[in-house]
């Protein structure tokens, strides 16, 4: 046989599988408003950078006439490529092939690319669009899921893992995204749940649509399972490309440095904050007034909005920012916001990203619902995450830092390397009103005019304690700085912490309260 005929045979075979489920199935996919698996990979990766593996993999199932069914590429496309020159491993489930159902061969293709990602130290991007387990394969399909979850866990903290939900992702399948670092969803396309509307209806008699149960909005606003919400697949891919620039390839590297840029002039750090600590402002505006190019990539923007987390750059270097949001619930810590911040802090710590904490909070949210929901345990997560982190930790106390909230927000006592406070900072056990009511209870009660007395005592307490100088006198604050010098202080402290070394007792792993 000549090379030409062998090449022809190769092209013939390739053409057959590369079309996935065939034209009819592709038409259906398009009718659902979705791109095909191959189009998705092409759209995310740099042009011509995709290298595919395991195209000719076939399943070995023979039950239920499966031996007569050919499933091109077994319903998942795997390979490597680049995003803005940044190498990644990628897989995309192909819904046009048996509904993207996961059988053993399908799963083994995924675990193979995951093993590559681990060995090569490259981020993993997984595009999920699957009806779930391939029922004909029985327990083997469950085995496949388990092998993926095991690798997600092994890879956690070693390589960044990104999940993109572009179709259904139901039942056991959702646990792979749940174990990864960032979950992207698209409005009206993504659907995630453990048990679907049908089961809920039969078992519980409750009727709910897929969208209301586990659509993109639900996962970003109510459950907090997803980190990024987009209106279209294209917007989602842009978000992924942007995120990738902020994070390193693996836990042995630092994120790439970019050319340093000044914040945009329209964000004036001195004009963001009302001096009265009872009035709100948008923490994101403050962050934009401090970071390079005022470019802040917010994560989980729509969930637990009382805390703001995300990536930015200072002098070209990536930093992870955690800031209380006075605009929402006055910036209190609660079950959800503690959970949100703690996971982010651990991501930054695992991937050598310095942490900047911007403090302005009245404390933890009081309430029966919070206590019963376990705010003790959830609130402890943030203490754990900060105390555990060994990356450079820099804290700026902007206004109020009361009680347990002060300690939790990366105080000196939890191992912050540098703690700065603005002259507007109030570091105290609680706000002046509450403190005065307790300390001067008898004086206030005995006074002829209790309200006037209360006012006097609140004033007295405010003058004495509502400032940064007592904390500074005790060395809990390293420097009192003005807003205008904050960026410079942050840049300097991150720069000199580049080679920070901090040792922790040797252990297999800690036992965080989750």
């Amino acid at each position, binding site marked *: 046989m000549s090379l030409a005929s062998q090449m022809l045979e190769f092209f013939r075979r390739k053409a057959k599988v590369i079309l996935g489920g065939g034209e009819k199935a592709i038409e259906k996919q398009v009718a659902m408003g979705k791109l095909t698996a191959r189009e998705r990979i092409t759209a995310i990766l740099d042009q011509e950078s995709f290298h595919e593996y395991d195209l000719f993999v076939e399943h070995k199932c023979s039950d239920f006439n499966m031996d007569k069914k050919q499933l091109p590429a077994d319903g998942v496309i795997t390979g490597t490529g680049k995003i803005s020159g940044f190498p990644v491993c990628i897989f995309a489930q192909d819904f046009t092939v048996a509904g993207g159902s996961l059988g053993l061969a399908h799963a083994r293709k995924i675990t193979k690319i995951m093993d590559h990602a681990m060995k090569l130290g490259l981020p993993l991007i997984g595009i999920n669009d699957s009806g779930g387990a391939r029922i004909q394969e029985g327990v083997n399909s469950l085995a496949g899921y388990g092998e993926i979850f095991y690798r997600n866990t092994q890879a956690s903290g070693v390589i960044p893992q990104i999940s993109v939900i572009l179709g259904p992702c139901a039942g056991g399948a959702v646990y792979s995204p749940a174990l990864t670092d960032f979950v992207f969803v698209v409005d009206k396309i993504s659907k995630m749940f453990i048990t679907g509307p049908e089961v809920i209806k039969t*078992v519980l008699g409750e009727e709910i649509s897929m969208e209301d149960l586990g659509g993109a909005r639900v996962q970003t606003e109510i459950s907090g399972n997803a980190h990024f919400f987009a209106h279209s697949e294209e917007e989602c891919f842009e978000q992924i490309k942007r995120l990738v620039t902020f994070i390193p390839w693996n836990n042995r590297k630092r994120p790439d440095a970019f050319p340093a840029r000044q914040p945009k002039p329209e964000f004036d750090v001195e004009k963001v904050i009302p001096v009265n600590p009872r009035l709100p402002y948008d923490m994101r505006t403050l962050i934009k007034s401090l970071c390079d190019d005022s470019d802040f990539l917010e994560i989980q923007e729509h969930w637990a909005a009382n805390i703001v987390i995300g990536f930015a750059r200072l002098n070209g270097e990536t930093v992870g920012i955690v800031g209380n949001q006075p605009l929402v619930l006055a910036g209190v810590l609660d079950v959800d916001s503690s959970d949100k911040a703690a996971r982010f802090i651990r991501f930054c710590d695992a991937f050598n990203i310095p942490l900047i904490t911007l403090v302005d909070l*009245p404390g933890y*949210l009081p309430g029966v619902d919070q206590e019963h929901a376990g705010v003790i345990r959830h609130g402890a997560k943030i203490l754990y995450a900060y105390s555990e982190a060994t990356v450079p930790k820099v804290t700026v106390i902007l206004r109020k830092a009361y*009680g347990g909230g002060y300690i939790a927000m990366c105080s000196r006592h939890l191992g912050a390397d540098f703690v700065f406070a603005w002259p507007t900072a109030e570091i105290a056990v609680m706000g002046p009103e509450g403190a005065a009511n307790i300390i001067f209870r008898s004086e206030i009660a005995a006074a002829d005019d209790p309200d006037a007395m209360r006012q006097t005592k609140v004033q007295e307490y405010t003058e004495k304690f509502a400032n940064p100088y007592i904390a500074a006198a005790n060395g809990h604050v390293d420097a009192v700085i003005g807003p205008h010098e904050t960026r410079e202080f942050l840049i300097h402290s991150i720069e000199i912490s580049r080679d920070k070394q901090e040792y922790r007792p040797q252990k297999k792993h800690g036992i965080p309260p989750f």
Partner: protein
Amino acid sequence: MEEKDKLSIFVIDDSQYETRLTEKFKFRRPYAKPNPKHVLAYIPGVIQELRVQAGQTVKWGDSLLVLEAMKMKNDVTALYDGTVKSVHVQKNERVIKNQLLIEFE
């Protein structure tokens, strides 16, 4: 300004803050003290069998009804000796979690 962008007064430790409230906070369920005279469904399901009627005296541990949920038949029993005041469900009725099933006198 949109509805969700409106600022409200939010009090913590006697200090008043101007801020936005979240949907979750606004619609949080107020705490209600549990009434020991009420027998509630601890899981959503279907009433398979009713074993008592209003006016009946029962002893601690007596079966009140069978609540089938997640393919399991759960025997709901009396937590103390007493008299059934009223039965709020019927056989084969589907109940939601925390729905009132039986009231004691």
